[in-house]
Every structure is written in structure tokens, then in C-alpha cells.
């Protein structure tokens, strides 16, 4: 269980801001106004609840800090969204941050995640594939493979891709088959090396 007070959350946010040469605006509780970035028929994706701080960045970008322990979002123009979910509910989070000249935002997200990991005594892993950066935090001692994340992405024409992250073995197919069947006809299946990995390892003793 990880608990941080509002004051502690703000302290982390302030340090993250300072390390990036920014100033944290804590002039009052508010909800982040996401409306400038919404399409006419798009719902506001920000979580409900009071927002305790907004880190103002250049170029219509803000880093919002919500209720403790932390719900954080990087909002603004570009193919990136960073959302921390409530640590108390799961083992951690997965975040995707686009690059393409947006290194400042990536750096801020990396710094903020470092601060949160340190303050919350969390494990942290950062991976980048050239297009997106993933930051994963989880409680020390947790086995992240026990709680895979399913990502469903629906393109502008309504067609979908379903991915499973953090699970070894063919059991991941069972996890997603109901969703895939409900959506329609499967046109392509790409199996990763982990798909064929055994879910349990056998160790032989007394050989060699």
C-alpha cells in the first residue's frame, strides 16, 4: 500500500518542476481544463476529483497533479498522453509518450516518474522504441507478469488492434479472446517470442 498526502504529492511535483527549470502553480484547487484539446464530440478524459497543482509548460502543455497518491496527466498538442493511475489499486502503470521533437515533455515525464518512484519506494523501468517511451512503476516485490495489461486501440475507421503486455505463454490469448470475438473478424495475429515461453519454468538439478 502506498499513501502520500497532498503535501507530499505537491512536494514531489515541485521538485520535478525545479529539476526541469519550471515552476509549479499551486494557487488553488481546480480541474485541468482539457477543453481546448477536445474534438466537438469527444468526452473529457480527465479523472474526476480535485486537482491540486498544475505545472505550466511552454507550448500549451501542462502537467496536472490530482488527488493523492497521484493521478497525473501530460496534456497538450501531440501524440502523447501520460497518465498515472492510482497506485493503491494495481501494481503500477504504463505510460506512452511520443517523441518527435517533444523531448522536453518526455524529460519532464521521466523526471516526474523518477520522483514518484523514489518517494513511493517503487521499482521503475523505462523502455523506448524510437517512437514511444514507456515508463512502468510497480511496487517492489510484485511480479508484474502476474498482472498483464491489455491495450485495445481503435483506429479512425473503427478497426481494432488488441495487445497484451506483461504476460508470458499462450495464456494471453485466453485473456483477450472474448474481446476479439465481440469486435469482429480477426485479420492478423502477430505472436511475439514470449508467446511460446512456458508460463512456469522447470529447473533441472544434478546435471552438468
Amino acid at each position, binding site marked *: 500500500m502506498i499513501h502520500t498526502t497532498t503535501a507530499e504529492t505537491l512536494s514531489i511535483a515541485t521538485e520535478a518542476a525545479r529539476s526541469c527549470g519550471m515552476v509549479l502553480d499551486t494557487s488553488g484547487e481546480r480541474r485541468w481544463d482539457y477543453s481546448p484539446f477536445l474534438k466537438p464530440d469527444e468526452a473529457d478524459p480527465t479523472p474526476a476529483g480535485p486537482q491540486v497543482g498544475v505545472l505550466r509548460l511552454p507550448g500549451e502543455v501542462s502537467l496536472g497533479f490530482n488527488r493523492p497518491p497521484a493521478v497525473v496527466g501530460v496534456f497538450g498538442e501531440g501524440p502523447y498522453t501520460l497518465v498515472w493511475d492510482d497506485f493503491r489499486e494495481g501494481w503500477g502503470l504504463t505510460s506512452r509518450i511520443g517523441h518527435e521533437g517533444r523531448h522536453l515533455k518526455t524529460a519532464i515525464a521521466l523526471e516526474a516518474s523518477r520522483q514518484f518512484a523514489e518517494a513511493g519506494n517503487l521499482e521503475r523501468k523505462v523502455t523506448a522504441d524510437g517512437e514511444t517511451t514507456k515508463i512502468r512503476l510497480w511496487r517492489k516485490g510484485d511480479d508484474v507478469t502476474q498482472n498483464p495489461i491489455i491495450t485495445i486501440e*481503435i483506429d479512425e475507421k473503427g478497426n481494432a*488492434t488488441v495487445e497484451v503486455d506483461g504476460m508470458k505463454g499462450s495464456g494471453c490469448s485466453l485473456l483477450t479472446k472474448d474481446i476479439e470475438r465481440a469486435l469482429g473478424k480477426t485479420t492478423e495475429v502477430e505472436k511475439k517470442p514470449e*508467446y511460446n515461453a512456458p508460463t512456469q519454468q522447470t529447473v533441472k538439478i544434478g546435471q552438468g
Partner: protein
Amino acid sequence: MSHKTTIKTEIHDLEALKRACDKHGEVAEIKVAEAGQEIEARLYQGNTKGAAVVKFKSWNYPVVIKADGTAEFDNYNGNWGDQKHLDKLTQLYAAEVVVQKVKTSGLRIISQETTAEGRIRIQAQK
């Protein structure tokens, strides 16, 4: 990641279609047939039947959702109706189906967002 599946969306869940229509700003009307029945609708080339009929405000003819989950329509390459309206409806429908299925599969949604490119991304976890 151990696997990635690509799916061509088919419209079979008519309740999810109704909810998608409610969220779509361009839908003027939706009619859904009783179970085992079909609704007739007039397209340019004649009458056709389907499980549901969706009328967009700015389209000349309705979109007929067939029993096999496909859509039949006459929009004359966009001159009689903007294809983006139907694409958006399919996208909203798929999101409705995913959210519903996640809930009934013992999973929980940990994030839902619309990307800058217009994709809907939903993440779920046990």
C-alpha cells in the same frame, strides 16, 4: 507483449450500436429490428433489409446494418454523405463493445483516451 491481434470490426451488438449513436453528433435516427426480424430501408438502387438502420443528418440515404455485421449504404463516393461519419460511428461502436466486454470479463479499465491522431486507446487489467 506476447501477441497482437488485428480485427476488422463487425456490428453485431445492437445495444452497443444504440449507445454509439447517442454519442455521435451526426446521427438523426436509429431503428433496430425485433429479434429475428429485419427492417426494410430504401437506398438509391432499391430497397434492402437489415438488423438496424441508421440515418445520418446530412446523408441522402440511410446506412443499413446487415445480419452479418457489415454495413450497406449509398453515399456516392462521399457526395451523398461523408464517409467519416460512418467511420466514426464504427469507432464509437467498437469502443462501446470493448468497454462492455471488459466489464463482463472480470477486467477493469485503467485508462481510456483519444490520441492526437484520433484513435481510441483503452487499457484494461485484471
